[in-house]
């Protein structure tokens, strides 16, 4: 089963939910936790452990100066402005390159071939028994989030139970993470911001055909607007976590609620069972 944990709004507590869910499930069966928030990964802060890292690369063009006659066809073909052809040299801007292979195809002299270029890393670790953590980290300033997300998901493709922590928002990295998942948990907070952004996230999950369930985090008991929205849209509120300074303090220090207060494991396990039902997986 592939489960994503997402939210429209940032800071609602996705990582807290993914981390605690993975911790709880790992008490009974093997689970892989994948950090797909590759711009700002933070699950490794909850599960510090020695990791093996591998580079993630994308193919980028390299021009053979002995064959190039500076005709400029590659510059014209590139939709992203990654190639600049001057009178006597070619400048290539890797952060603009989408690795589409277009320039390589159009060069009339066959002067361009592709070489791998690093855009980030994948770190894999086993912080505890039954738990594998795969974190994608995009090199700072590099805009290629999607290829790293593809790569970390690929690392977990053979694992039976996978939880993907998603970037906040609703753009390409989120779509890439949610695609192919059997269900997703949308974490929201009971504020107008949370609800506004929840609506966007529900829309994305819907477009991708991924069934969604809701977790309300930091609830102050005044969740009516959110509850109404969920009822209107046939969404189950699978768990509500109250706002509590102690819980907040545990989180901010990179500790796990389920580890510090084991009574919470029951709640997270119940959440896991609800996700399985949502995904249509019998347990």
């Amino acid at each position: 089963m592939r489960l994503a944990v997402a939210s429209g709004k940032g800071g609602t507590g996705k990582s807290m939910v993914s981390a605690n869910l993975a911790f709880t499930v790992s008490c009974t069966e093997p689970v892989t936790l994948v950090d797909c928030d590759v711009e700002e990964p933070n699950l490794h802060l909850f599960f510090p452990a020695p990791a093996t890292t591998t580079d993630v690369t994308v193919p980028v063009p390299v021009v053979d100066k002995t064959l190039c006659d500076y005709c400029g066809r590659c510059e014209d073909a590139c939709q992203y402005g990654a190639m600049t052809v001057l009178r006597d040299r070619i400048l290539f801007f890797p952060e603009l390159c989408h690795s589409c292979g277009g320039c390589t195809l159009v060069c009339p002299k066959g002067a361009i071939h592709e070489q791998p270029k690093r855009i980030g890393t994948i770190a894999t670790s086993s912080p505890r028994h039954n738990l594998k953590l795969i974190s994608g980290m995009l090199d700072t300033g590099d805009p290629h989030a999607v290829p790293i997300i593809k790569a970390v998901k690929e690392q977990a493709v053979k694992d039976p139970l996978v939880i993907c922590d998603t970037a906040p928002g609703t753009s390409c990295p989120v779509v890439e993470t949610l695609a192919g998942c059997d269900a997703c948990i949308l974490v929201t907070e009971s504020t107008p911001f949370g609800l506004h952004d929840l609506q966007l996230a529900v829309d994305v999950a819907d477009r991708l055909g991924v069934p969604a369930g809701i977790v309300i985090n930091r609830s102050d008991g005044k969740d009516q607007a959110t509850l109404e929205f969920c009822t209107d849209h046939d969404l189950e509120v699978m768990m509500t976590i109250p706002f509590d300074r102690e819980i907040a303090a545990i989180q901010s220090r990179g500790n796990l609620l389920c580890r510090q207060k084991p009574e919470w494991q029951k709640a997270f396990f119940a959440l896991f069972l609800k996700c399985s039902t949502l995904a249509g997986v019998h347990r």
Partner: protein
Amino acid sequence: MIRLAVISGKGGTGKTMITAALAQLLPESLVLADCDVDAANLELLLDPKLIYTEPFMGMKSAVIDPTLCVQCGECQEHCRFAAVERDVDAYRVIPLRCEGCAVCAYVCPATAIIMQPRQTGEIMYSETKRGHLVHARLVPGAGNSGLLVHAVKKMALEHDRDRDYFLIDGPPGTGCPLISTISGVDVVLIVTEPSISGLHDLKRVVAVCRQFRSRILVAVNRFDLDEALTDTIQQWCSEENIPLIGKIPFDPVVIESVRNGVPVTEAGASPAAQAIQILESKLEQELRHYRDQRE
């Protein structure tokens, strides 16, 4: 005009709430922009009245004409983004996956593929108590949020360039929309929170900001939820020569005011409102100093 962007690195630190409060407190004339186009919330606190909207066309997407398609499959073979699928009697591009590279159009032997702009969002120009607000909506899943941010900023600058300050509510993260937000901005205020993730993301976003020429300032929101971590952040800022100009306590009045659709500084005196007032006066000092330096 001085351009000020409020950003955060980590999401959910309270930058929108603080931007709305600053809009209410700054005495000068303003134009406002919400550049968090993936999840634009500033309007929830400013009660905007819509004046007009404009469609936003993202990058071009490939479109295959089924009447010309000879079903050779070259397009699918060359597409690196899994954006071409086989339909009943022609190939078809999946718009959500298309990155607009035009390779398929190049390799198609039947010239059946053209590149067409797609509407992927909408830009809104609205009136608020404190000045015009430019905000936008992106079709969920669409790319080019960076370009939409640029379009939002451009509209604000075109219509309201005579304002004293251009106040921007920025997006979280360090990707294209953030970079597009801080490009050409004079002062960047980073709102962080006292958590390990918050500090981690603060460092990352500062590294990105340093590639530009903006003045960097930091404020810590909900600082009393972990005072030791707040000290760590303060220490780091001091080592990095980054002024820490605000420390706002956790305050339930903030959520109440958000629910009522107003900035916390409009909801009476509260610890958070007071702390934001102090932040605002220090910010004004910084902005005046910046203006003096420029002239």
